């Protein structure tokens, strides 16, 4: 049957009067086919939700692929999958799994302390406040869990302003970085292992000669620095070597922001937002909630404005809801919550900003001539009106990856709207020395080539890999004059290869330090464990340059802060709290100069002029960032937002662009397996080849490339994964570059993606109400509409009596209006529950092990979806669990508190439960996925969760180990468990508080209050599974004048 017939198929073949009139529409707009059908079939029905491109269009290729019953055989196993690396990841999977189930136990030993430390109670975990470093040198305040001296888990620090108890993916995954077996373990000099002393001698000798010349030949290249201690050391060093220079380089830097504020205010100013107060938020190419040092806090604040049923943030009446406009070239977690979303090319985003500024009457602003975009034209006036109506309670934010001009305009608009001081807070710079990293690196390269550099110290930077090729860093490093090149870092990476010395760095959990948070709050970092491989901290290295070798990191940090804080006790308190109270950056008054605005507008108009060809948009990768996390298996296996691809960084292209390029989305056999078309992207001679991922909501003509892949020198996890896109970056085209050419090479590349790509609307035109949604207006008009979507069977419609649950009755509620799909919950779950990494090959076969997945659906038109919906799906802990009834060995049962439990050691692995789970949340150990061999990884494991063996089923347990711990503590203290005392890893990590957990029998519990809301519904309620996990229907708040199903 041909594809075209296929399109009409639904209408024609399912003989259904309602449908036959839908059929032609199905034929006409393949994209909306079933969606329109759905809308037609049920008046109140929302537009179709769908997840696929080819499936949606029933393209011939797709059908072809699926019909072939053995594409695996047709195409060699795992084409494009490095089978070998997979095996490495699998560890000793080939060893007979039986061993794990062997009944005879090997004799075990107990090794007590010789002298037991005071604070340790054997078997009980300890928590330490510390600082997790983030991109740009910022810090996130975290609490690290330590089990008998082993850091096992990172949680947010509830006291810390940037965290408030939540975390992002990188903080969660950082604990694996500590135990990464591929970390650089030794000091290396010209390929030979050397001692620290040898290094110190070598360095001191060189410094002695430098001292003579006042350090004229000494250069230091570090990442962006906010750490006061580090800055102090630098100052000291520069005092000792007046002619020395300190440069900073960040591949994924806030360069545009720096340049922007310099242009706008004529000085360096730090900007942060108070989204709790903001009623209208405009994100211009800005991933406000997903990226950057403030993202976690911003998410928290913003989400409060979305929970209409809870007491709204101060200054707003209950029941009101903030509104988010997102104008961007590539979708971001932020824009999944947008009430209005506009996909434009980067230059057009600028134009939009300029036009907006003009519409708002910002002095000096002018709408770019000759730019007219229908959708923009429709949105602009409304947006302008909305902003003017919310003077002082709105935010216009420009992203780090946008042009400096955009920042200038944003500043101007905020100033004009009087947002400065209320929702937009200007402060003194947070970076120790704000710079344009490109200029810095360029200067360094120039000096290297000029032979001015004799000694170069590089602190955890990797310019050889991540600098734009035109800078020719590698060649420059080889300049004969530079006789001592030192690299200090966690990995022996590409840059280390060009250095005489490589010093292995200590992980942040291994040493002392400090850094500042998004608001400037000084966050202190304390070690939980001695350096596993004798790594050194940057402070120790710099101490040598300060000419006080042997000084430890603690002396440096404490030495700086104890006096400043006024004594030992204050210092202790600060360390205990994890941060220095009241150390946020002081406010800075600054006025925007109109000239800058006009200039910005001009630049934008020029940029707009040269938009021929495709525009490349570079973005830090949601998993690998700029490459520093490339070797983190948890992050690599994390389904990237939108594409849900793992272990790769495909080029994101919009459907229209895909059609232009004559490529399909490579849905080879309908699901995980994707045989993506390979694109050859060329610009000014430079070129790369990368698989394409067709992504709705992507701006037409824009190819999004993410950094951090194609590493040639890192651990075995990250080596050779994905494509290195830095090759296409230039000074001018640092974040976005126009004038690129792209064509399909005809090759195919297998991408592993964890989520199905299918219509939620079945051919009969009925939408499956996985995500129930409404606009605020609709909801206020008709609060019950979420329930009316599907009728759940009445409780008395059964022969059997309800099972009573006295005592606790655990339940979870997930707020779909707040979930940005940032994945923090997923990594948190992986870390807490010892979930195995299975590798690309197995994910490709549909065997990923994540207990918690985030389903993503698109709403509305295929080429320009009106909304992207995130739905976290853990186990539903159904009271009538279908999985339990079919288990032949009582391996999955219900607890007295109503948890659906999986008892691994009883499981024989029939997989019947997995088949019978309508939510498909059960995961099976097809091989021996858990790594039983790598010692360092064993240290990371949570001792309270069994490591699963081959051949058993596993699934979300609501973090039962935490529940049990809480119950035991409470019963020991003879009290009730308080609300919020038990929080599963996902709920604890979630930056938007989208996941709430608690005792449904407790009338006061937050979860109970949520579940009472009319918005609350259960997924697939109609199956009478009675899920304990319920969802808060998704609300959108479009502007009344643009009212539509968002």
């Amino acid at each position, binding site marked *: 049957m041909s594809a075209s017939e296929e399109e009409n198929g639904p209408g024609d073949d399912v003989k259904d009067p309602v449908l036959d009139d839908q059929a032609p529409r199905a034929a006409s707009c393949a994209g909306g086919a079933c969606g329109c059908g759905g809308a037609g079939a049920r008046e109140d029905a929302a537009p179709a939700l769908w997840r696929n491109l080819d499936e949606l269009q029933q393209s011939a290729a797709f059908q072809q692929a699926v019909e072939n019953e053995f594409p695996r055989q047709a195409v060699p196993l795992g084409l494009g999958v490095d089978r070998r690396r997979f095996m490495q990841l699998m560890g000793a999977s080939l060893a007979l799994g039986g061993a794990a189930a062997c009944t005879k136990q090997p004799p075990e*030993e107990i090794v*007590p302390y010789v002298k037991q430390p005071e604070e340790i109670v054997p078997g009980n975990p300890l928590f330490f406040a510390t600082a997790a470093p983030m991109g740009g040198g910022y810090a996130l305040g975290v609490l690290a869990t330590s089990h008998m001296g082993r850091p096992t888990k990172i949680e947010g620090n509830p006291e810390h302003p940037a965290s408030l108890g939540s975390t992002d993916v990188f903080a969660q995954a950082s604990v694996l970085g500590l135990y990464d077996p591929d970390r650089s373990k030794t000091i290396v000099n010209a390929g030979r292992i050397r001692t620290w002393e040898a290094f110190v001698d070598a360095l001191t000798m060189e410094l002695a000669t430098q001292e003579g010349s006042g350090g004229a030949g000494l250069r230091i290249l570090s990442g962006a620095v906010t750490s006061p201690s580090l800055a102090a050391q630098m100052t000291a060093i520069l005092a000792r070597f007046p002619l020395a220079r300190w440069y900073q380089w960040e591949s994924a830097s806030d360069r545009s922001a720096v340049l922007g504020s310099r242009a706008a205010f004529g000085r360096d100013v730090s900007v942060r937002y108070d989204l709790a107060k903001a009623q209208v938020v405009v994100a211009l190419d800005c991933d406000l909630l997903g990226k950057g040092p403030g993202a976690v806090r911003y998410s928290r604040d913003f989400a409060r404005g979305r929970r209409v049923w809870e007491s709204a943030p101060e200054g707003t009446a209950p029941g009101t809801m903030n509104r988010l406009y997102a104008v961007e070239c590539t979708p971001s977690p932020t824009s999944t919550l947008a009430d209005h979303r506009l996909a434009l090319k980067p230059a057009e985003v600028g134009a939009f900003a300029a036009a907006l500024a003009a519409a708002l009457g910002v002095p000096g602003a002018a709408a770019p001539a000759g730019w007219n975009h229908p959708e923009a034209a429709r949105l602009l006036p409304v947006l302008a009106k909305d902003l003017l109506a919310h003077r002082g309670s709105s935010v216009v934010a420009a992203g780090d990856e946008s042009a400096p001009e955009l920042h200038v305009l944003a500043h101007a608009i905020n100033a004009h709207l009087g947002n400065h001081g209320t929702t937009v807070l200007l402060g003194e710079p947070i970076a120790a020395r704000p710079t344009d990293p490109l200029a810095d690196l360029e200067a360094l390269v120039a000096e290297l080539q000029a032979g001015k550099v004799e000694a170069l110290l590089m602190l955890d930077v990797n310019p050889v890999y991540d600098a734009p090729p035109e800078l020719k860093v590698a060649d420059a490093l080889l300049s004969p004059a530079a006789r001592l090149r030192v690299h200090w870092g966690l990995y022996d990476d590409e840059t280390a290869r060009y250095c005489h010395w490589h010093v292995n760095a200590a992980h942040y959990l291994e040493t002392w330090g400090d850094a500042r948070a998004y608001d400037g709050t000084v966050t202190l970092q304390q070690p939980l464990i001695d350096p596993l491989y004798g790594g050194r901290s940057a402070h120790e290295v710099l101490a040598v340059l300060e000419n006080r070798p042997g000084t430890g990191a603690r002396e440096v940090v404490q030495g700086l802060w104890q006096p400043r804080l006024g004594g030992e006790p204050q210092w202790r308190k600060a360390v205990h709290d994890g941060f220095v109270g009241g150390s946020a950056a002081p406010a800075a008054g600054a006025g925007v100069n109109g000239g800058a605005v006009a200039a910005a507008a001009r630049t934008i108009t020029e940029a707009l002029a040269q938009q021929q060809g495709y525009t490349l948009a570079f973005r830090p990768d949601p998993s690998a960032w700029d490459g520093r996390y490339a070797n983190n298996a948890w992050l690599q296996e994390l389904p990237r937002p939108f594409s849900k691809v793992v272990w790769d960084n495909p080029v994101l292209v919009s459907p229209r662009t895909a059609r232009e390029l004559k490529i399909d989305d490579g849905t080879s056999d309908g699901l995980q397996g994707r045989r993506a078309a390979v694109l050859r992207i060329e610009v000014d001679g430079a070129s790369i080849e990368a698989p394409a991922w067709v992504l709705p909501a992507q701006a037409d003509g824009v190819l999004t490339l993410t950094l951090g892949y194609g590493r040639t020198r890192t651990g075995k996890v990250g080596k050779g994964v994905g494509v290195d896109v830095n090759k296409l970056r230039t000074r001018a085209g640092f974040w976005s570059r126009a004038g690129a050419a792209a064509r399909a090479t005809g090759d195919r590349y297998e991408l592993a993606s964890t989520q199905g790509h299918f219509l939620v609307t079945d051919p009969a035109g009925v939408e499956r109400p996985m995500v129930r949604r409404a606009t605020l207006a609709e909801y206020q008009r008709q609060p019950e509409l979420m329930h009316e979507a599907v009728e759940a069977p009445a409780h008395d419609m059964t022969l059997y009596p309800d099972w009573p649950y006295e005592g606790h009755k655990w339940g979870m509620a997930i707020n779909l209006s707040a979930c940005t799909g940032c994945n923090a919950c997923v990594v948190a779950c992986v870390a807490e529950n010892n979930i195995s990494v299975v590798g690309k090959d197995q994910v490709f076969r549909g065997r990923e092990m994540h207990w918690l997945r985030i389903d993503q659906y698109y709403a509305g038109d295929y080429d320009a979806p009106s909304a992207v919906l995130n739905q976290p799906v853990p186990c539903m802990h159904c009271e009538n669990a279908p999985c339990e009834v079919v288990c032949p060995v009582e391996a999955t049962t219900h607890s007295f508190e109503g948890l659906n439990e999986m008892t691994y050691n009883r499981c024989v692995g029939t997989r019947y439960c997995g088949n019978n789970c309508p939510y498909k949340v059960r995961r099976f150990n097809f091989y021996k996925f858990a790594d039983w061999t790598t010692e360092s990884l064993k240290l990371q494991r949570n001792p*309270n969760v069994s490591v699963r063996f081959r051949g058993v089923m596993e699934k979300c347990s609501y973090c*039962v180990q935490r529940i049990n711990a809480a119950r*035991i503590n409470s019963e020991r203290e003879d009290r009730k468990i308080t609300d919020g005392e038990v929080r599963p890893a996902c709920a604890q990590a979630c930056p938007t508080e989208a996941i709430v957990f608690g005792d449904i029998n407790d009338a006061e519990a937050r979860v109970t209050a949520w579940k009472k809301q009319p918005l609350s519904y259960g997924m697939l309620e109609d199956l009478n599974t009675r899920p304990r996990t319920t969802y808060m229907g998704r609300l959108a708040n479009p502007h009344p004048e643009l009212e539509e199903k968002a």
Partner: protein
Amino acid sequence: MAQIFHPSTNTISRVSIFGLIFFIAFAGWVAMAIDRSPAVTRERQVIEQPVPFSHDHHVGEEGFDCRYCHTSVEKSAFAGIPPTATCMGCHSVLFADSPILEPVRASFRDGTPLHWRRVYDLPDFVYFNHSIHVAKGIGCTTCHGDIGRMPLTWKASSLKMEWCVGCHRDPAKYVRPREEVFNPNWDPALISAARRAELMKEYKIVSRTSCSVCHR
């Protein structure tokens, strides 16, 4: 046609056919008996230790409280094995030069911990918590047997699941007043069933047989 079989085969064949059933039953019974026997459970078997520590002496004769060494038994899942320092607390003076205690002194001297061998070794997928059992009035001797009279330590119970569940199903049989938990000479007969029922209420003890109580 000549006879193929000897007359005796009649009896043999009949016995073998009808005896088969009983044989299978017997074999099953034997298998189960073995599985429950000390040969498998390692019950009541003294395990060689680096130092022949005698609970009989320390608890029975000297009357040490369990918590003197097992410090975390009320606070943690793990009862705690004393650091060498605890031993040396007394043995730097008492038996200071006894050759038996040399390993202890050595450990203290050069800071190398003692390597005790586990007597009560649960499988890795079983999570037992001392503190809650103690808090609910389940005494040491209930599981550790007559520890106070063991010159060398052995396992006093099978640690088979049926054994655990036995108590979890009906804790009333074993509960005792909290103040008696660490009494090595406690005898359940000391209090009446009625008293135990009261304790059950007082300590809010309920039978817990859900899987996740022990398996996670």
